[in-house]
C-alpha cells in the first residue's frame, strides 16, 4: 500500500497531535521532500518542536527536505475574494472587514471549505513533484466538522463555482492515493474510544480512510504481574507502577481494537524526559519510519 500524498493528523486534544505531526513529517522527509502544513499558525506548535518557528506567512525550513508552512482559513478566504471581486478603487480595508462579516456569517463553513480546497491543490502539487504533505490539523471534533464542510456547501450552492469546488474537494477526500487521516491517541480508555469512533465516523459518513493510528506515549513494559502483587503494599510507589502497566495494557488492547476496525497502529514510546525538543522529535521520527505501513 502506498501512502497518500497528504496525511491529515488529528486526534483528541492533549494526545500530542503536533508532536506526532512534526515527527511524522520529519520521518517522511528522510525519504522524500515533505511539507508540514500548520493549521494553527498562531501557535505553530509543530514548527516550534522542529526548531523552525513560523513568522508571518513565509515558509520555514526545518531540515534538508522539510519545510513548514502556515495555512489560515482567513488568508484563503481573502485570496478567494480577491479572485472574484475587483475592488481596487475603494478603501479596501473597510470593505473587506464588513463584507467578510456578511459572507462568513451567512456561510460559516466557507473559510474552512476554502482551506480544504487549498489542501487539495497542495496534494496535487505534491503528486507532481513527488513530495509528501503532512497537516497538523485541528483536534478531532473540529476536524470532523472541517472535513464534512464540502457536503454542506454542495447543499447551499447547487450550481456555480462553489459547487464545482465542492465536488472536487469531495473526490479528493475519498481518494486514498491523495488523502488519508492519521489519528493520534494515547493509552487511555477515553482517547482510544474517541479515536475509534472518529475512524468509524470518517469512514461511514464521509468515506475517508484512516491510514494509521499513532499510539503516543506508550510506556515501555517494566513490571510483571508478580511484581505488582509483590509491591501492592507500597502505597504511591505501587500506584505509579500500576498506572504504568495499566497504560501499557490499554495500548495492547487498542492494537486489537484498531486492527478490528481495519486501522494499523503504530506505537510511540513514552519519552520520560524533562523537555521535548528536536532530539526527542528525531527519536519519535525514527520509530515512525521503522513502523510506517509499507510504501
Amino acid at each position, binding site marked *: 500500500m502506498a501512502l497518500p500524498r497528504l496525511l491529515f493528523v488529528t486526534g483528541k486534544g492533549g494526545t500530542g497531535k503536533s508532536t506526532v505531526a512534526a515527527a511524522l513529517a520529519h520521518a517522511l522527509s528522510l525519504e522524500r521532500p515533505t511539507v508540514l502544513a500548520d493549521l494553527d499558525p*498562531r501557535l505553530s506548535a509543530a514548527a516550534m518542536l522542529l526548531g523552525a518557528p513560523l513568522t508571518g506567512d513565509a515558509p520555514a525550513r526545518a531540515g534538508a527536505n522539510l519545510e513548514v508552512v502556515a495555512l489560515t482559513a482567513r488568508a484563503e478566504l481573502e485570496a478567494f475574494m480577491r479572485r472574484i471581486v475587483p475592488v481596487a478603487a*475603494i478603501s479596501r480595508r473597510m470593505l473587506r472587514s464588513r463584507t467578510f462579516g*456578511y459572507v462568513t456569517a*451567512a*456561510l460559516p463553513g466557507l473559510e474552512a471549505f476554502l482551506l480544504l480546497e487549498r489542501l487539495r491543490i497542495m496534494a496535487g502539487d505534491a503528486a507532481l513533484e513527488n513530495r509528501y504533505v503532512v497537516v497538523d490539523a485541528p483536534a478531532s471534533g473540529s476536524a470532523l466538522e472541517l472535513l464534512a464542510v464540502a457536503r454542506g456547501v454542495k447543499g447551499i450552492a447547487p450550481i456555480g463555482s462553489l459547487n464545482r469546488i465542492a465536488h472536487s474537494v469531495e473526490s479528493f477526500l475519498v481518494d486514498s492515493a491523495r488523502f488519508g487521516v492519521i489519528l493520534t491517541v494515547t493509552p487511555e480508555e477515553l482517547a482510544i474510544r474517541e479515536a475509534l469512533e472518529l475512524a468509524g465516523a470518517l469512514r461511514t459518513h464521509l468515506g475517508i480512510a484512516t491510514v494509521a493510528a499513532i499510539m503516543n506515549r506508550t510506556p515501555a513494559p517494566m513490571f510483571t504481574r508478580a511484581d505488582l502483587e*509483590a509491591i501492592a503494599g507500597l502505597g504511591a510507589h505501587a500506584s505509579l507502577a500500576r498506572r*504504568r502497566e495499566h497504560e501499557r495494557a490499554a495500548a495492547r488492547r487498542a492494537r486489537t481494537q484498531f486492527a478490528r476496525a481495519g486501522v494499523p497502529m503504530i506505537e510511540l514510546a513514552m519519552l520520560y524526559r524533562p523537555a521535548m525538543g528536536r532530539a526527542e522529535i528525531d527519536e519519535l521520527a525514527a520509530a515512525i519510519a521503522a513502523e510506517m505501513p509499507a510504501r
Partner: protein
Amino acid sequence: MNQLDLGGCKLAICLGPGGVGKTTISAALAIDAASAGRAVDVMTVDPAPRLLDALGLGSDASEPREVDLREVPGAKRGRLRALRLDPRATFDAIVRRHAASPAAAEAIIAGRIYRNIASAFAGVADYMAMEKLLELDAEPATDFIVLDTPPAAEALDFLEAPRRLLELLGSRAVTLLGPRTGRFGGSMVDIAARAVLSAFDRVTGLKLLGDVQAFVRNFDGMYEGFAERAKRAGAMLHADTAAVIVVTTAEAGRIAQAREFIAALGRAELRVRAVIVNRAMANLPETAEISQAKVPAALKRKLRRNLEDHAALKTREALSFDTLRATMPAGAALMLAPDLGHEPRTLSDLAQIATQIHRA
C-alpha cells in the same frame, strides 16, 4: 472548601484552550460552593458524556435542573442546578421573545441565513452563553453562578464574538442593503459592499445578497435589545464580584495558549483571579520508601527507575509552571487541580477534584 476562595464572588467564568477540562473544573467549583451551603447554578458547554451523567443532565437540559447532592461527602444543604448551553434553542427563544410578531419570528427562524448563523457562526454560542448568564442572574434565589465557556481559539472570542454578531445585525446594515436612508446613508462602502456581494453571488451561484437583505430587515428593531443585553453581560464580567479563571493543563502547547489567553484578558482589562492547571501530577513518593521495602533487589531497581522516569516528567511539568508564573497577572493565583488518574465519572470525583485544588 479549597484554597481558591470564591466566597465573595457572585460569578465565576472559566476560560481556556480546548480539551483542558474547563467543564470539569466549572462543575467542580460549583459543587464545592454548593457543598459550602451556597445556591449555585452552573452552565456547562459541550460536557463529556460521563460528566453529563454525573450531573444528571440529559441531552435536552437547556433549562437549569437540580443536581442531587446526596452522594457528595459532607455536603451542607446548599443547592446546585446545572444546565447545558444549547445555542440554537436559546437563540430561537430570544428571537421569539423579541420579534415584532410571532409571524416575524417564524420568518426569521425559517430563513436560510438564520439557520446557518444559528448553527455554525462561532459568535452565536458565546452570545447565547451571555444571554443565559443574564437569565440566571435574574433569579433572586441564586447566589453564585459558574460559567463554562465554548471552546475558543482565543480568550477574547467569548467577549468579542457577541460584538461581531451584533455588528452584523446592526442597524447600519439596514441602510447598507435596504433603502438609502438613515444615519449612515449610502456611503462608498455601502455601495461597494453591495457590489461585492452581488459579484460573489454571480460567481458562486449563491443568492446571498437577497438573503442577507431579508435577514437584516427581519432583525430590524431587535438590534437595540440585543446590544443592551450584551452590554449588561459584559458589565457583569468586569464587576469586582466576578472571578475570571483561566484553565489549562501543563502540556507545553496548552501553556503557550493559556499565556495568550492571559495576555488578551489583560488587554481587555479583565482581572484574572486564578490560573488553574488541571490534571497536575501528584507529588512523587520518597526514594527512601523503596530502600526500606521488603522486596527483592531487582524489583527495587525497577521501582527506582520508574520513580526516576516520573521525576523527569515532574521536572517537565515544573518548567511549564515556571513559564506560566512568568506571565501571571498581578493578584492572580496559580492553582493546581490534581489528576485523578481517571476520567471524572461521579459527583464525588468532581467534589474530590474541587477539595484538592491548591496553590502551586
